[in-house]
């Protein structure tokens, strides 16, 4: 059985799955796309009303929401810096830098 987390840049062709198929689910967490970012959203906590309009706008699920239903700071491992959240925020709580 192949596990995608064990396949890395050093793996040989014998250690890879045919056609590159990934046999185990939820592996996109292993692929950190944050380094594609050229602009960075900055969370200005004091302006935030916790309306959560930004959360569903994020194409990369990079805005974590805690157990109390409050958004937290960005997960920069996955934020590609597209800026959609900043446009969605009515309260100037997200600033692109």
């Amino acid at each position, binding site marked *: 059985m192949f596990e995608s987390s064990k396949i890395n840049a050093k793996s040989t062709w014998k250690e890879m799955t045919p*056609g590159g198929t990934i046999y185990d689910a939820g592996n996109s967490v292993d692929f950190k796309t944050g380094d594609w970012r050229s602009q960075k959203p900055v969370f200005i906590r004091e302006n935030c009303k916790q309306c959560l309009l930004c959360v569903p706008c994020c194409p990369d699920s990079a805005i974590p929401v805690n157990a109390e239903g409050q958004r937290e700071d960005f997960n920069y491992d996955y934020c590609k810096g597209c800026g959609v959240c900043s446009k969605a925020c009515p309260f100037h709580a997200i600033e692109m830098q």
Partner: protein
Amino acid sequence: MGIRERLSGNEAVANAMRQIDPDVVAAFPITPSTEIPQYFSAFVNNGKVHTEFVPVESEHSAMSACIGASAAGARVMTATSANGLSLMWEMLYIASSLRLPIVMSCVNRAVSGPLNIHNDHSDSMGARDSGWIQLYGETNQEAYDNIIMAMRIAEHKDIHLPVMNCYDGFITSHSVENIELLEDEKVKAFVGEYHPEHYLLNKDEQIAIGPLDVQPFLFEHKFQQAEAMRKAKDVIKQVQKEFYELTGREYGLIEEYKMEDAEYAVVVLNSTAGTSKEAVDRLRAQGMKVGLIKPRVFRPFPGEEIANALKNVKAVAILDKADGLNGVGGPLFTDTTSAMLINKVTAPKAISYIYGIGGRDVRVEDIESVYKDLQEVANQENVTDTYRYLGLKGGRE
């Protein structure tokens, strides 16, 4: 003992598909392959098969639907010709690189332009490096037999590559010939049930197919594909052996016709091999030692087998029904001569002949003239015109 019938090539292939009863057929009509989905949709509507038939809006969609269905875990078949195959181009590579065992009949026709619906091999030859196994059949019987064997070859656990069942448009696809069909239950037993190890509809294993494959990975995945193609030679021979045991019809990677003591040989694919056999018989009656090699598989290329069959000839003509447009010769010519070189068969003089483009008729006399040319070639010190045309009006300057 089989069922005696008389069927056109397309009818025979559609009947093989009925007997195989695949899970999904997605196809778009294009001459001369149209009859395959046409006959097959009648089988679907008459309840002769359980297949989900998807009448898509283009060939790009046909192959895309086949890929989706195959990735989902279905046994999938389709058919096309010429520009239909061209429109599948992108998806041909996706199918082979994702290792999906789709079986497609390619009823050979000239690729436009200018527009021509008749037979040559420019369609499948254009796709020769797309990672598909390519089988070529001379007769209706071979088109029928090949598609049944194709299913087994494609789905073999060491292969998992798509297979193209190529045969000549109109000449084979629309001519009615005597044919021996297998009983339905024998075909079903021969192809067996398809149980892929990994597939998208498996609720117990959540998989992703065709993900991003960057610099550290694609090279290795391409190597795996190339390995499967290399291994396919043995698997094809094994499946042919089992098919022989079932039917008594014996096939190999190549067919040799009167090659044992041949001094002059022709290498040619598909229906023209039949015409050439008649030329061989006529010239043999006149005392000329001539023979024929018909590759039955073009991908993987049976280079060693062809070179070995040619090792004692004085001269060989390699006939291509598709011009290479490469300044050197046809695709069968370039692959054959490369194979001769690496297998150290360098004594025979080799000539490329382009013939039959756009359905130009090729007669027994034309092939006889090729053998007579070879006799001259064998006696010439320096042969410089190795890129020739058969039946071209005006000839090559």
